């Protein structure tokens, strides 16, 4: 039973790239283009893993993570941040918001898959 991953990124090319790379690795991919839709899709899809960007126009990644974690049913869902940012400050902020891990863009498809299986076997 393949795992469902919700990817949230405001860049369409990034969403497509994620979908292409991860579908090839056997994941089922759903996507949303910003935090707000990410939260809506989260409720609909109830994915096994959430991968989110940080910098997005409507509801950024931090806010999305906080909002997702505030819902009891998503307290245990792993959340990975996938961002070009890599400052400790941002990572700490993501962690306290409830992120499980942080992956710095650009990603290598194989390593991304490994990282995903690290939190979502």
């Amino acid at each position: 039973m393949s795992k469902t991953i919700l990817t949230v990124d405001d860049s369409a090319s990034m969403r497509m790239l994620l979908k292409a790379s991860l579908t090839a690795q056997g994941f089922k991919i759903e996507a949303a283009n910003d935090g707000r839709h990410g939260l809506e899709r989260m409720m609909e899809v109830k994915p096994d893993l959430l991968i989110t960007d940080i910098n997005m126009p409507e509801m950024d990644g931090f806010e999305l993570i906080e909002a997702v974690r505030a819902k009891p049913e998503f307290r245990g869902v792993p959340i990975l941040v996938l961002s070009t940012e890599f400052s400790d400050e941002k990572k700490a902020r993501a962690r306290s918001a409830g992120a499980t891990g942080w992956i710095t863009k650009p990603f290598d498809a194989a390593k991304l898959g490994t990282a995903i299986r690290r939190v979502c076997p």
Partner: protein
Amino acid sequence: MSDDLDDIQAIFFEECAEGLATAEAGLSAMADGDVSAGTIAGVFRAVHSIKGGAGAFGHAALTAFSHRFENVLDEVRAGRIEPTPGVTRVMLTAFDVLADHVAAAQGTSPLPNDAAVAAALDQVLADRGVAEAAPVAPAPVAPASEPVAVEPDPFGFEPVTAIVEPFDPFGFEPVTVTLDLLDDAGPVVADEPLPWTVTFVPSDAALANGGEPMLIVRELEMLGGTITGVDLSRLPSLRDLEPEHAYLGWTISVPGTVDESAIGECFDFVAPESIVDIVRDVAGDAAPAMPSPAPAAVEIAPVVAMTVPTLIATPLAAPAPAAAAATTPVAAPASVSATAPVAAPVIAMPVAAPAARPARPDEAEAQRTHEVAAQTIRVDLTKLDMLLNLVGELVIRGSILADRLSPKDQERVELPQLSRLTREIQDTVMSLRAQPIKQAFSRVPRMLRDLSAETGKQVILETTGETTEVDKGVIEKIGDPLTHMIRNAVDHGIESAEKRLAAGKPVQGTIKLSAEQKGARIFVRVADDGGGIDRARVRAKAVEKGIVAADAVLTDEEIDQLICAPGFSTAETISNISGRGVGMDVVRSNVEALGGRVEIASVPGKGTTFTMVLPLTLAILEGMIVRLAGQRFVLPLANVIETVQPEPGQVRPTTTTGEVIELRGNYLPVRRLTRTFGFADNDAQTPEESLVIIVESETAGHVGLMVDTIDDRREVVIKSLDQNLHPIRGLGGATILGDGSIALILDIEALVGPSAPLTRYPQKGLAA
């Protein structure tokens, strides 16, 4: 997959173009003094996205440069760098280079030399003390014999190309474990590397945030690791057990052939405060390498027992907190409360519900700015075009039906309702392709500032009609022509400050940029208040270049049109600005390729106006179906003022303009369209047998057009004319009428404009 990647990459470049436009608009606003948080955040996000995508598609130079740029923007965004005019200038320059980098990544231009700008950006950072080139070096990998707490990069991906990434992750605090016992051990030389002993004590909060320490243990097992010990010392009694707390610790022996970094990677997402220790075993010492003085504290944990048959009781060489826990098995940290199982002891932050979170002012603003951008979907343009064509066919079918059915039958089958619906569908589909011309205009302020700086001429820009909606394809293609027209206006149009003062004009020149839709055409004008076209010089130059014969008789308009002749350049010294090998001839051919034309109007001493007259690729036009020599044409109704059935003597010949019509005391020029288009067979027709349609034109005021009859009034679908028909002035497109026959649509401006009734551009006839 590679095809897919190409497609995705194409989308990425589209996003780049959008991002560049956003960044440019934002930077321009900043240069004009708008340094609000929303504006800065917009620019940051644009550059940030470009960087992200560039990295994903392997454009190293673009990634590196956008990263540099982003660093400065980030500091500005955080308020640590003041967006002074100087800083903004550097960023504007950086923007230009960024655009060049994007073009280079696309393969449309060579890689730009960004050294100077990169240095300037670094200087901006250095001025506030953040030097790009001072990375915090990661701790060197410990030699095999030296026990050092591993400082895993929990997000251990390759850093972005050309970026040195400071190492520490999520505030993970490195825990140094010193084992005295190992201090004396010398370097190990062995054929078979000694195994690693990995100690892993997840923090209490390791199960929060979706973490699962067992997955790390399993991953180590996949690397060939064997659990050699389980620390149960922190396990409370069942009654006190919090299901969401981590209580266990493990000691795992991993084969020495496994790379240390591979082991470290397993801990990529380990919770902060966890203890991770990777130590190479010492020769001669049987694993486990650590003393195990407290067997009493160790029990066999069922969960481990399932996977590991032999357990060696080993407590953990742990620093103070865990050691304390080892002696007091049930002692949980004070911060662990039964009611807040998710709370992480150290970095615990209240998890706020989003609704309760007040938006910061800058965020609220940023959200407003992007409200419009949300809720969009990308659709392949060819699909839209197909839809557009189909709707066009639907409209035509509708009018064929209307032709064939009597009004009564039309009502019976509810044809009017159907037509209305069809019309609405068409409007909607049209609007899908239409975008405000603002996108094309947004580059201009920036460019003007640069031009001002280069030429020392002060220029004010006045923009109107930027909300005019134009077909996306048209917007994309008018960028270059527009750029050149603006350069041209500053370089050749606006005079130097001294000349302007001498002419009694304000020192600052004005360029008016406007767009408007009239009927089926979009008019984009660039008007300067400069010296006008120096016709004597243009003529002399054209003669010198052999574009016209020395004795050619040319009207002012024809001379003006010479500017668009291929290879024409009047700048006495080739300037950096417009002398880039792109002349007005390229502008003209670009615009003509779109089915449009370039008009030039110049008044000596007063200024010059260049107008791009562009088609809406497909639109519904309300038209009058007229007949010329038996053929049907469509006259755009928007231009029609009135229709006159001339009385005998009302239309009279004159010497200069041919014929005029007397209308309520005024004389208006009349053009016989049959003559204009060369249907000379009914030239002898008397005006009384014809109709004169008075039309209003932008350039020539009211003019009478003589046609044979008027057939009908009807909405028609404009179809673009084929390329080879473009040079025929006076035709704006074609349509299919209700009976299936084709009718050409008249372009009033071209028919009655100043250079009418020319059928081709002057230099084409004069060039030989």
